[in-house]
């Protein structure tokens, strides 16, 4: 139990720093879960990453939950990990169904959120404001049946099977499987200076060899 109390220290620190923006928190099976407000979520996540006592420097996962109970709001879930402190924290944002399904993107905090947020958009239809490239990632880009993991999405999709096959066969292969997608060239400027130097050295060594 002492470990559990220790884990929830982040929740107490959040409450001290952000007050009403922090909702309920709980420790479930040793994992701390903190609900935060949608409006200040980005600020709170940035604080969790940068504050010396927290240092959640690694974003393990971004996902979403829709409960079978139609009254419950959707949740966006951030699974944070602090590598130096060996600690975990789960941050949840509740999204009311009547309001816009939109939260602020955290790609500017953790680069790894890019594809994770695209997946949440693809599967749940939750938009991430400020995302650099918010488009589908699992379904193909011209997929037009909605967001499959929503509870109101029929298991077999909305179109007839013939229509689904027709649309799938009509997809432009080159548009979806281009080598450009795999290129890291355009990410070069965003890399840390030491990694840029290492790549430059390797390229130089490869050129002379």
């Amino acid at each position, binding site marked *: 139990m002492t470990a559990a109390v220790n884990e929830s220290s982040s929740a107490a620190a959040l409450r001290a720093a952000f007050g009403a923006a922090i909702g309920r928190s709980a420790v479930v099976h040793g994992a701390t879960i903190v609900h935060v407000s949608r409006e200040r979520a980005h600020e709170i996540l940035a604080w969790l990453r940068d504050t010396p006592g927290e240092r959640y420097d690694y974003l393990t996962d971004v996902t979403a939950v829709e409960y079978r109970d139609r009254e419950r709001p959707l949740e966006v879930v951030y699974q944070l990990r602090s590598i130096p402190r060996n600690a975990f924290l789960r941050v949840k944002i509740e999204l009311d169904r009547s309001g816009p399904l939109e939260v602020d993107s955290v790609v500017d905090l953790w680069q790894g959120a890019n594809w994770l947020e695209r997946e949440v958009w693809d599967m749940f239809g939750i938009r991430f404001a400020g995302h650099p490239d918010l488009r589908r990632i699992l379904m193909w880009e011209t997929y037009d*049946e909605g967001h499959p993991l929503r509870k109101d999405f*029929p298991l*077999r*999709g909305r179109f*007839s*099977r*013939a229509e689904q096959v027709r649309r*799938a066969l*009509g*997809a432009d292969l080159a548009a979806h499987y281009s080598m450009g997608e795999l290129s890291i060239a355009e990410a070069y400027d965003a890399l840390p200076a030491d990694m840029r130097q290492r790549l430059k050295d390797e390229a130089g060594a490869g050129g002379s060899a």
Partner: protein
Amino acid sequence: MELTAGAGERAGFVSPNWVTTRLDDLVNWSRANSLWPMAFGTACCAIEFMATAASRFDLARFGMERVAYSPRQADVLICAGRLPFKLAPVIRRIWDQMPQPKWCISMGACASTGGIFDNYAMVQGIDTIVPVDVYVPGCPPRPEGLLYGIMLLQKKIKRETVFDPTLRVEQLANEHGLFLEPAAVDELSEPFGNSVQQTRSA
């Protein structure tokens, strides 16, 4: 293949240099015994395919010495595993790139029917995309199962005739952008077995 050397033997001579046979027998014999597979492995069936190709079961015993991995040098497409809609145009392009004569084996429950994946993302049987010659049941089929499917395909090939041009016609997409009538695609994709009670809205 039946060689008609018997007649020569009866006439008192046997030449080692020539035999007579039916052209169909000769062509089908050579085709059936040098099937180069193009493995399209998407799931666990591909693991069984690898086991089939490896030393214990040894696909090479049946003339499949070379697994092509290049559609242009392949004779039989083996779809081993489930096919999501996203891969449907890929398998169709691979099929179109394969030269005639060509055949297709649908390996396993998912490739043949969609299997347990009766959902929004999965093709309900690759026969809605490419024409299938042999369906191998199983989840996944054991190597013996795949080998039996291959032997059935060889049997089928040996009954073909080179004088039937309809066997080797390249199939083009119809006006619906499909390779079957839409109603046929819908019918092939219908749930079966335990799930007949389900409706599309379930």
